[in-house]
């Protein structure tokens, strides 16, 4: 990394370079996983679709016209925020990359991955309360301190902020509704409480931004951006709620109903 990256210079911004590399690696890794696991039972096409749609959302937020516009417009920045921090994580989580990895790896190495997932660190970081604090805490820092302004002036900080928004959103979504194996999945009650608290904090932050524009943002732009954050955030939040409660619905299926279903359609078991 060059020490003068924050000086506007010829060549693409650091964020563009990092995003292109990360997206290319993500796209290739999933394709390699699909190929390595092709001898197994068929992988649902919707999972593959989710992965590439998730990458497209992350790409739209970090590259191209929207990313360009978000340097000047807070509303465009917020559209990017919802894409990168909420919609991309949801789609990437629904693509079940860990399950694909476990299928693609030889048994011995797959066991090492499962062991890592059961480690104390994974247990702590994968807990929804920790993930919600990482995600929500990061957002409050970004918008209520000078960090937003600093990130606009410094390319490395900008990259770190974007990476944090995506990864923390990913972690939170995975801990709440992830289809991947999760050795220490929190109870429905804990996950529901965390989700409601997070949605509340997100909507309070949106209204706070409406009243307190970040430095360098005009009041009209801040108001439009805050409302976009609130309503587009709602759409993703309701999708998360539906997935969470649908998980409860499946898990609490009455047993006689389940066995009757299996008798009729053995393939569903």
């Amino acid at each position, binding site marked *: 990394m060059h020490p003068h990256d924050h000086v506007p210079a010829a060549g693409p911004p650091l964020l563009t370079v990092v995003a292109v590399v990360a997206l290319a690696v993500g796209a290739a890794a999933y394709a390699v996983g699909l190929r390595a696991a092709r001898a197994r039972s068929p992988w649902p096409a919707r999972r593959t679709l989710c992965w590439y749609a998730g990458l497209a959302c992350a790409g739209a937020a970090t590259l191209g016209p929207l990313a360009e516009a978000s340097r000047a417009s807070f509303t465009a920045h917020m559209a990017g925020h919802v894409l990168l921090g909420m919609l991309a994580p949801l789609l990437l989580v629904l693509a079940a990359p860990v399950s694909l990895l476990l299928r693609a790896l030889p048994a011995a190495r797959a066991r090492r991955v499962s062991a890592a997932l059961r480690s104390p660190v994974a247990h702590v970081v994968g807990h929804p309360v920790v993930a919600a604090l990482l995600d929500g805490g990061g957002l409050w820092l970004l918008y209520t301190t000078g960090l937003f302004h600093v990130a606009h002036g410094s390319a490395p900080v900008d990259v770190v902020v974007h990476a944090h928004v995506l990864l923390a959103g990913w972690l939170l979504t995975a801990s709440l509704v992830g289809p991947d194996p999760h050795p220490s999945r929190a109870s429905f009650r804990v996950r529901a409480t965390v*989700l409601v608290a997070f*949605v509340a904090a997100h909507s309070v932050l949106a209204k706070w931004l409406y009243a307190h524009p970040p430095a360098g943002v005009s009041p009209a732009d801040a108001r439009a951006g805050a409302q976009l954050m609130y309503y587009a955030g709602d759409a993703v939040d309701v999708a998360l709620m539906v997935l969470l*409660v649908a998980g409860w619905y499946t898990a*609490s299926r009455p047993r*006689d*109903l389940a066995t009757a279903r299996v008798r009729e359609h053995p393939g569903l078991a």
Partner: protein
Amino acid sequence: MAGRDAPAGVADDAGARDRRTVLSGVLFGAGIAASIIDLFVFHLGLQWHHFYDLSTTQVALAADGLFHAVGWFVTVWGLFLLADVRRRAEVSWARWVGAVVVGVGGFQLLDGVLNHKILGIHQIRYGVDLLVYDVVWIGTAVVALVVGLVVLRRARPGRPGGAGSA
């Protein structure tokens, strides 16, 4: 038969199913009153409510955020509870509808008294004499609550036409 070790307190006897039907209706009713009716009627339709009236205290703002989140959650949860009752047995629709009306009335009453008058999160409309609006709001909430309770009572299990008689 699902035994008592079945997951998530399974409602497989008629009493538990009936309680779940009522819970589903009340949650769904309160949820749509908090999220959907408020958004589509008062924010987007009549445009009496504002996104944020800028006069709110920090505590009221936090309370508003919590109401917002809980409203959406109980809407979704209430519908899945209904689906759960349905996959186990016939749903008593009269009982569920009664519970929905109780939920709507109960939430509007809470909103009209606690949110508008005590916490002052927002008002019904701005630049008008509020007394009439408050009286109509709280009055209709009480009427809905009473009507819902009457429907619930008439549809209670064991009565002709009530739940469990079908």
